[in-house]
């Protein structure tokens, strides 16, 4: 059962489940909590708490819902020396994220144009479900994408250097190593660069309907009633395959490191192990693919 610390913090004590090494903690209000209790989220938070070498608590953010191994919105910090890395913890959709574009227009100005705008965006930005993307890359060129991320896209004419300053990590994780990414993952990535995907991925024309913090909003160039475009996408099939590949690598590696997990999606290895380091390099490469992907769609949206 939850031990309610206050209105927004709900503790899952170690005694909840055998094998928990740390407590779990869910952040939610009275509206979110029943939803979180309705599926397996709580057990997934508890399962994560059984992994070796975690520090603090196994956390669930207010958007938490049932995932695979970890819940969606699950957060855990691992000790660099004693802790583990889990491909399933990072998830299939490596560097799934959003780009928000501020459009220099307010909602009234585009009121009658939304439908043609959507059609145009649909034509300019491939969804990629079954279709080839707008670019097809040779093996070496894909490695450059994996190595350089959004900078590759800029170099190839998709946007400007100024964009990089607006992207976390400047759109590139330096630890990426394309050689740690399997050919299968690259095959899936080849035709999907510059594509949105389906499922929970989307591109929307939006309107700012309420500003909570003027200062922050203006730093982002946002104001009330302004039109924005939100692109939600990730590393596509390339990232999904990296996760699939390393789930197996980690599952097989666990015997060597005498680790056992209560849910196979939580397969993990020590961070400093050969498998762990290689996964992190492949993960960074997939993240760079996602940075390049969102940058290209940003360019087309403009």
């Amino acid at each position, binding site marked *: 059962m939850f031990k309610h610390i206050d209105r927004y913090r709900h503790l899952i004590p170690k005694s909840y489940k055998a094998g928990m090494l740390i407590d779990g903690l869910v952040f939610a209000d009275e509206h979110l909590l029943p939803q979180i209790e309705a*599926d397996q989220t709580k057990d997934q938070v508890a399962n994560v708490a059984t992994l070796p070498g975690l520090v603090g608590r196994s956390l669930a953010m207010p958007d938490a*819902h*049932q*995932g*695979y*191994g970890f819940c*969606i919105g699950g957060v855990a910090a691992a000790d660099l020396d004693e802790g583990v890395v889990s491909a399933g913890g990072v998830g*299939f*959709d490596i560097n799934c994220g959003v780009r928000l574009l501020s459009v220099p227009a307010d909602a009234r100005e585009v009121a009658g144009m939304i439908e043609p705008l959507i059609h145009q965006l649909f034509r300019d930005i491939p969804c*990629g*479900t*079954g*279709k*080839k993307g707008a670019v097809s890359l040779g093996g070496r060129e894909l490695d450059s994408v994996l190595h350089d991320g959004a900078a590759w896209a800029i170099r190839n004419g998709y946007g400007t250097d100024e964009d990089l300053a607006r992207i976390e990590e400047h759109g590139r994780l330096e630890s990426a190593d394309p050689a740690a990414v399997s050919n*299968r993952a690259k*095959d*899936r990535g*080849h*035709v999907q660069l510059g594509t949105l*995907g*389906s*499922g929970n991925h989307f591109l929307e024309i939006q309107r700012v309907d309420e500003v909570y913090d003027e200062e922050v909003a203006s730093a982002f160039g946002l104001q009330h009633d302004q039109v924005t475009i939100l692109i939600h996408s990730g590393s596509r*099939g390339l990232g*999904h*395959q990296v*996760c*699939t590949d390393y*789930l*197996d690598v980690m*599952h*097989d590696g666990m015997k060597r490191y005498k680790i056992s997990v209560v*849910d*196979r*999606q939580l397969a993990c290895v020590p961070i400093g192990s050969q498998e762990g380091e290689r996964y992190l390099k492949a993960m960074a490469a997939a993240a760079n693919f996602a940075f390049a992907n969102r940058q290209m769609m940003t360019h087309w949206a403009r």
Partner: protein
Amino acid sequence: MKSRGYEILEHPADLGISAHGESLQEAFEEAARGLMAVILDPATIRPHRAMPVSVAASDPQQLLVRWLSEILYLYDGQRFPCAEFSIHELGPTWLVATVRGEDLDTARHHTRLDVKAVTYHQLDIQEGAGHARVRVFLDI
């Protein structure tokens, strides 16, 4: 109930396949059919070309995930959607199969859903005398 077949399990956050047959071999084949039906309308895929598939794994669970991941890879990485699946040999940690399909033609093949991956979430393999059932969940 038919002696072999599959059903798609739809939950708010999940999409799964429950497949059954008279043998584990049939259940694995049905799971592959179910996976392709999630991705696109199987009636649009012509079984023009055969492709040999062999999979090795460390246990039956991994074998099922790898088998289905192979079908997903053929579609997503090789642009080769499959319509027919025959497993010739199935051991606890390996299988040898032939799948039949054709090159992706976006004019005829309309993707229903992008499947990201085959997961180990609540994966289940049941085998009894003259009956087998597998259950697997997909990340979509």
